């Protein structure tokens, strides 16, 4: 196998009308270690987990009633990898400082492991909430299982 993580660059800003089509039309690809795609730089804390470059940031999307985390990721390898956002554990604190386990807001139960093609990228924003209705003021997530092709290794990030 020829080594991964090539010299190919990502592309500059293009209106996100159709990510997949624009990607191929412009021959955009994810460049290993760039933590950016055609929409710009990945916001938040940067982590590399195997073949996956992952950025974890807080989202200010007004549609979310609870804390929302943006996940931006790119496959730095020349083979597909499994992105498992469903494996992420989240914890947060309420106004009294008490810690609560959080669950992802997924009314249609869409969260599941999916393949990410080689040198490709994606973004998802997920809202978390406590099991009982409480305002949550900070969130930490364990992203150690995001790479579904490798064993889970706890990696907590508090964006």
């Amino acid at each position, binding site marked *: 196998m020829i080594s991964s993580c090539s010299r190919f660059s990502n592309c500059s800003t293009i209106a996100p009308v159709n990510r*997949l089509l624009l990607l*191929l039309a412009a021959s955009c690809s994810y460049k290993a270690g760039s933590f950016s795609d055609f929409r710009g730089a990945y916001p938040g804390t940067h982590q590399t987990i195997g073949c996956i470059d992952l950025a974890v940031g807080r989202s200010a999307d007004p549609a979310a009633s609870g804390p929302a985390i943006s996940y931006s990721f790119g496959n730095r390898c020349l083979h597909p990898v499994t992105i498992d956002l469903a494996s992420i554990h989240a914890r947060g604190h309420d106004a009294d400082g008490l810690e609560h386990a959080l669950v992802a807001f997924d009314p249609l139960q869409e969260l599941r492991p999916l*393949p*990410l093609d080689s040198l490709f990228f994606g973004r998802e924003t997920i809202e978390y909430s406590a099991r009982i209705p409480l305002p949550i003021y900070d969130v930490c997530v364990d992203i150690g299982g995001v790479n579904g092709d490798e064993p889970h290794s706890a990696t907590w990030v508090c964006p």
Partner: protein
Amino acid sequence: MKAALLLLALVTPAHAGHSCAETSEVLGHRRCTSFGAWGGLARFPSLTFDTELFHEDFASPPVGAMTAVNPGVFATTGTTMPDSSAWGMRFRVGAPLLLRPLYLAFELDIGGLSSINPSYALLSQAVAAVGAHAHVTQTIMLSAELAGGGRMYSWMTGAEETDGQGVLEARGRIDWWATPHLTFGVSLGTSLIDAGDQTFTVGFAGHLRAFDATFY
């Protein structure tokens, strides 16, 4: 490449021909896209769409065959057959076979024959090609293939005339990966039916999967 884009447009949910105004990017609040649109590409076959310019030099046919049908078609001088050649566009779709690195491609050539007078003869050709390719570097790929099919000539001499023949060609090609989804390449082919018939192509190709999903 355009065909690849069209294919994607047809199967990507948010692009089914209607506009959808997204109000949120948060899972569960989105209206236009479902979770995991980024995962769609990995489920596609690694199709390749080539567009090439071809030039073919004929050793004897089609001049002999066509002059036999209608001697007035070609500008012959004395007993010497004129040099004949064809040029045109080649459109090609390819996909890897299960037994990699073998691949299968289908192609259609549309072009014209030169060295004719006074009419203009069209050439159309359809072949299937089976080959194997190998990366000599990450960005340079060599291929060898065998192509077989048929071609048809048509020309006007008052009424439309047609003629045809089989095609069996051995080819070698070299492609350069400019990006993980785009290659530029040239190929050389030689007929296994008519010794001396040679084809040259130059073109580019769009690849649905990065590097044709080769490096697994």
